[in-house]
C-alpha cells in the first residue's frame, strides 16, 4: 500500500474534474486520479454545444436561459442554482475561449451558436440560437482544452488509477482509496477535500450513448458510505441514438433543421399532444416519448422499433419553408449539402462507419437511447455534498458533473446544459475545495484506511462460482431498458426490481478468470457491475415510489404531473437489503410551476 498526501484530490478527469482541478490547483496542492487517461473521458463524446446566452446571432438573455432550464426540468430544478448557472454561462464560455477553445465562428469572428431543444426566445416561443459549438465536437474541444491547460498549469495526474472508496470519518472526509490498474497496488490519497467527478451510469441500460466506463462509480462509492443519492429515477433518454447501437446523433442535427419521420413518412412531432410549436426541438423527454408512442402504434419504420431522422437538404428545406423558419438576419432558412457537411462532420463519419449510409442523401435510423443521469450525489451550488433533507453539509466532500446533483436539471436536462454544468460548478467546487483546504487541517486517517476497498476486491478475486458477469450485466440492461426506460408502470418496475435483486444475489456467485494484479480488468469490470446493480436498484425503487409523470420519469399508470404531492426531490440511501427514501424541498425563486407545453 502506498500513501500520498494532497490538499485536494479530484476523482475523475472529464470536463468537471479538470475544471475543478484547474481552479483548486491555483492555491492548493492538487492531484487528479482517473481510471482513464484524461482525454479518454466521456466529455469528449459530447457533440452539440454548450449553452450560454451570448446573443451573438440574435437577441438572448440569461433570464430566458434560466426560464427554459426551469421549464425543461419540469419545475423540479432548484431555481437558485439554475439562475446562478445561467448567469455565469456567458463569462465561463468566454473563459473557455480565452483558454484557447477553438469554437466555430460567425461571419464577424464571434463564437458561433445554433438552436437546441428546449431553448427558446421567451417572447415568441421560437427556438433561439444559444448553443455555442465547435462543429459537432464541442465536448472533445472542451476536454482537450481543459487537459491542455492542466498540463500548462502542471496539475498532478494519476492516470489509470481507479477510485474504489472514499474515506469518511465522523469529522468529515479524509481521502480516497484507489487501485493503480497497471500494478494492482492500492494507494491511499490522504486529502482535506475530495471532489468526485466520475461521470454517469448509462451502462445500466441496454441501448445507451454512454461509454463502457460509465458505470456510476462515484455514486456507488458514496452510496456504500451512507451518503444518499438524489433524484435517481430521472434518467434521460435521448431521442436520437443510432438504431441498435445507441451511438448518439446530436440534437444539433435537429437544430440544423433535421426532421423526424415515421413509417408512414409523416413528420409526427407536429401532431397535437406532441410539440406542435417547436416540433423536433422540444425537450428530450417530450420527443423520446412521442417516438415511443409512434413505435408503439406500429408506426416505426417497417413496423420495427426505429424511426428516421432526416437531414437531407431537400427535407430540411421543405419543412423549413413550411415552418417559415428564417435565419437570424431574416432571410429564409435554406441549407446545402456542403453546409451540413461542414457543421456535422463527425455525425456523417459515424453514419458512414457504422451504418454505411450518408446522411446528406439518406435518412438515419434512430431510436431513443439512455443518455444522461439527472440525479446523483446531492450537492449545493458550490458542489459541497449534502447528506439529508435539511441540506447538512458533509465537510470536505464535493461532487460535480454528471455524478453530482445540484440540481439544475431537475426531472429533465436540456441539451447543452450538461457541459455548462461541468464548467460552472467544476470551477466553483474547485475554488470552494481549495478554500476549505486552506482553512482546515488534515483529518487523521483511520486505522486501516484501505480495508473496505480491499475487502471488496478480495471477495471478487476469490469468487469461484459459475455465473458469468456478462450474463448478469446483460440481463440487468435488458430488464432496465424494457421496464425502467422511457415509459414505466408499477408492474414493469416491480418486475425489474425483483430481477435486479435476484441478480444481486447471483452476483455473489460469479466466476472470474483473471487472478493476477497487472491490468486485471476482469476484477474491475466485476466491481463496476456491482456499482451498476446498486444504481439500478436505487433507480428502480426511487421510480416505483414516485407516483406521477414528470420530465424523464413517465408512467403509464400516473400520466399527469402531480405538483401537490411530488414537487420534491427524492433522496435514497442504500441499505443492506433495501433502499430507504426521503424527500427534500425544491427551491423556487421566480418561476411558478405551469403546465409544460412545447
Amino acid at each position, binding site marked *: 500500500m502506498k500513501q500520498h498526501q494532497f490538499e485536494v484530490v479530484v476523482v475523475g478527469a472529464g470536463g468537471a474534474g479538470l475544471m475543478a482541478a484547474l481552479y483548486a490547483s491555483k492555491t492548493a496542492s492538487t492531484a487528479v486520479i482517473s481510471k482513464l487517461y484524461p482525454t479518454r473521458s466521456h466529455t469528449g463524446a459530447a457533440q452539440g454545444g454548450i449553452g450560454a446566452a451570448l446573443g451573438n446571432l440574435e437577441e438572448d438573455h440569461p433570464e430566458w436561459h434560466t426560464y427554459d432550464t426551469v421549464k425543461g426540468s419540469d419545475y423540479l430544478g432548484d431555481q437558485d442554482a439554475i439562475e446562478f448557472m445561467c448567469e455565469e454561462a456567458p463569462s465561463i464560455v468566454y473563459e473557455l475561449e480565452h483558454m484557447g477553445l477553438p469554437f466555430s465562428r460567425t461571419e464577424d469572428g464571434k463564437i458561433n451558436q445554433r438552436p437546441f431543444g428546449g431553448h427558446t426566445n421567451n417572447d415568441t416561443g421560437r427556438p433561439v440560437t444559444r448553443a455555442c459549438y465547435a462543429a459537432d465536437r464541442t465536448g472533445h474541444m472542451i476536454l482537450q482544452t481543459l487537459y*491542455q491547460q492542466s498540463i500548462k498549469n502542471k496539475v498532478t495526474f494519476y492516470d489509470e488509477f481507479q477510485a474504489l472508496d472514499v474515506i469518511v470519518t465522523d469529522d468529515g472526509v479524509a481521502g480516497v482509496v484507489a487501485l493503480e490498474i497497471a500494478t494492482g497496488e492500492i494507494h491511499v490519497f490522504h486529502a482535506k477535500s475530495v471532489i468526485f467527478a466520475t461521470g454517469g451510469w448509462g451502462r445500466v441500460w441496454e441501448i445507451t450513448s454512454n461509454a463502457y466506463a460509465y458505470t456510476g462509480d462515484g455514486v456507488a462509492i458514496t452510496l456504500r458510505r451512507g451518503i444518499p443519492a438524489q433524484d435517481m429515477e430521472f434518467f434521460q433518454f435521448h431521442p436520437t441514438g443510432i438504431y441498435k447501437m445507441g451511438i448518439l446523433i446530436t440534437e444539433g442535427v435537429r437544430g440544423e433543421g433535421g426532421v423526424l419521420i415515421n413509417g408512414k413518412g409523416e413528420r409526427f412531432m407536429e401532431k397535437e399532444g406532441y410539440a406542435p410549436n417547436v416540433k423536433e426541438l422540444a425537450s428530450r423527454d417530450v420527443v423520446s416519448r412521442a417516438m415511443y408512442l409512434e413505435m408503439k402504434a406500429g408506426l416505426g419504420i417497417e413496423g420495427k422499433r426505429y424511426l428516421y431522422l432526416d437531414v437531407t437538404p431537400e427535407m430540411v428545406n421543405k419543412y423549413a419553408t413550411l415552418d417559415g423558419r428564417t435565419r437570424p438576419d431574416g432571410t429564409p432558412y435554406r441549407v446545402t449539402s456542403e453546409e451540413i457537411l461542414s457543421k456535422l462532420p*463527425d455525425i456523417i463519419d459515424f453514419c458512414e462507419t*457504422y451504418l454505411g449510409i450518408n446522411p446528406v442523401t439518406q435518412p438515419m435510423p434512430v431510436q431513443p437511447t439512455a443518455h444522461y443521469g439527472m440525479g446523483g450525489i446531492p450537492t449545493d451550488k458550490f458542489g459541497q455534498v449534502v447528506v439529508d433533507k435539511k441540506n447538512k453539509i458533509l465537510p470536505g466532500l464535493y461532487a460535480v458533473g454528471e455524478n453530482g446533483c445540484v440540481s439544475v436539471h431537475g426531472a429533465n436536462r436540456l441539451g447543452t446544459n450538461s457541459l455548462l454544468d461541468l464548467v460552472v460548478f467544476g470551477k466553483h467546487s474547485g475554488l470552494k475545495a481549495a478554500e476549505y483546504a486552506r482553512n482546515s487541517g488534515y483529518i487523521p486517517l483511520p486505522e486501516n484506511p484501505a480495508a473496505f476497498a480491499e475487502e471488496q476486491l478480495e471477495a471478487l478475486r476469490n469468487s469461484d462460482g459459475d455465473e458469468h458477469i456478462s450474463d448478469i450485466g446483460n440481463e440487468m440492461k435488458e430488464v432496465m431498458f424494457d421496464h425502467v426506460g422511457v415509459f414505466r408502470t408499477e408492474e414493469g418496475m416491480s418486475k425489474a426490481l425483483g430481477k435486479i435483486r435476484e441478480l444481486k444475489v447471483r452476483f455473489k456467485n460469479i466466476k472470474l478468470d483473471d487472478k493476477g494484479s*497487472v491490468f486485471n480488468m476482469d476484477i474491475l469490470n466485476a466491481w463496476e457491475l456491482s456499482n451498476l446493480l446498486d444504481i439500478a436498484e436505487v433507480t428502480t425503487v426511487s421510480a416505483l415510489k414516485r407516483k406521477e409523470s414528470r420530465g424523464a420519469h413517465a408512467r403509464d399508470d400516473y400520466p399527469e404531473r402531480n405538483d401537490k404531492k411530488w414537487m420534491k426531490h427524492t433522496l435514497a440511501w442504500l441499505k443492506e437489503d433495501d433502499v430507504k427514501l426521503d424527500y427534500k424541498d425544491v427551491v423556487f425563486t421566480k418561476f411558478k410551476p405551469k403546465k409544460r407545453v412545447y
Partner: protein
Amino acid sequence: MKKITLKLFRYNPETDKKPHYDTFKMEVEPTDRVLDLMEKVKGYEDGTLSFRRSCAHGVCGSCSMRINGENMLACKTLVQDLGTNKITVEPMLGLTVLKDMIVDMKPFFIHYESVMPFFVNDEPDPAQERLQSIEDRERFDDTTKCIMCGACTTSCPSFWANEEYVGPAAIVNAHRFIFDSRDKAAAERLQILNDQFGVYRCRTIFNCTVACPRDIQITKAIGEVKKAIATGNLD
C-alpha cells in the same frame, strides 16, 4: 451471420516469458465491431483478455491496436470492412507491451507534453471572446480533431527505430496551436520541433496518415510545420 477466426496476441507479464497467440472461432454479424468480438471473448471465453476501451464509437482513442497488420480503432472497424474471415489483433508497435493489447502510453504522452500543447497568449483577456475569422479558424481545424489514440506514432517506422522521435501525434498537436491565429507561442514550438528528434525525423512515410482514425492529414501537417520552420511564415 458470418464465421470468422479471431487470432489474438496474448502476453501476461505475470505468467508468460514470451507472447503467444490464441485463436477463437465464432459466428458474428458482418456489422459487428472488432471490439464487440473482443468483448465476447472476454465475457464468455477468457476473462483474462485485456485491452483498453471506453466510448465504443471512435472518439476517445482508447482502443487503437493492430488489426490485420494495420493500426486501427477496434471500435471503429467492422468485420465487413476487413474483407476477410481471418482477423488478427495485436498491440501497437514501438511501445512496451504491458499485457495483451495494452501498451505503455507514457512515452507517447511525454512527447505530447514536450511540444507545449496548450494555448499561450499572455495579453490581457478581452471582456468577450477573441475574434477569429472563419478562415483563420479553418486553418487549423484538421489537427484539432486528434484524440491521441497513438495509432499514427506507433505506425511510424521512424518512431519504431528510435523512440526519441517526438512522433506525428505530438507534431499534430503542436500544429494545432502553431497555426491558431490567437496563439503567441509558435516560435517556441517551432524551436522545439526544429531538432534532431523533431520534424526532421519524419521521412514522409505516410503510415501515420493512413492509420489516423480521424482522417487527419498528418503528413501534411508535418510538412506545414517543416515549411514554417524553413520560411518563418505561418499562413
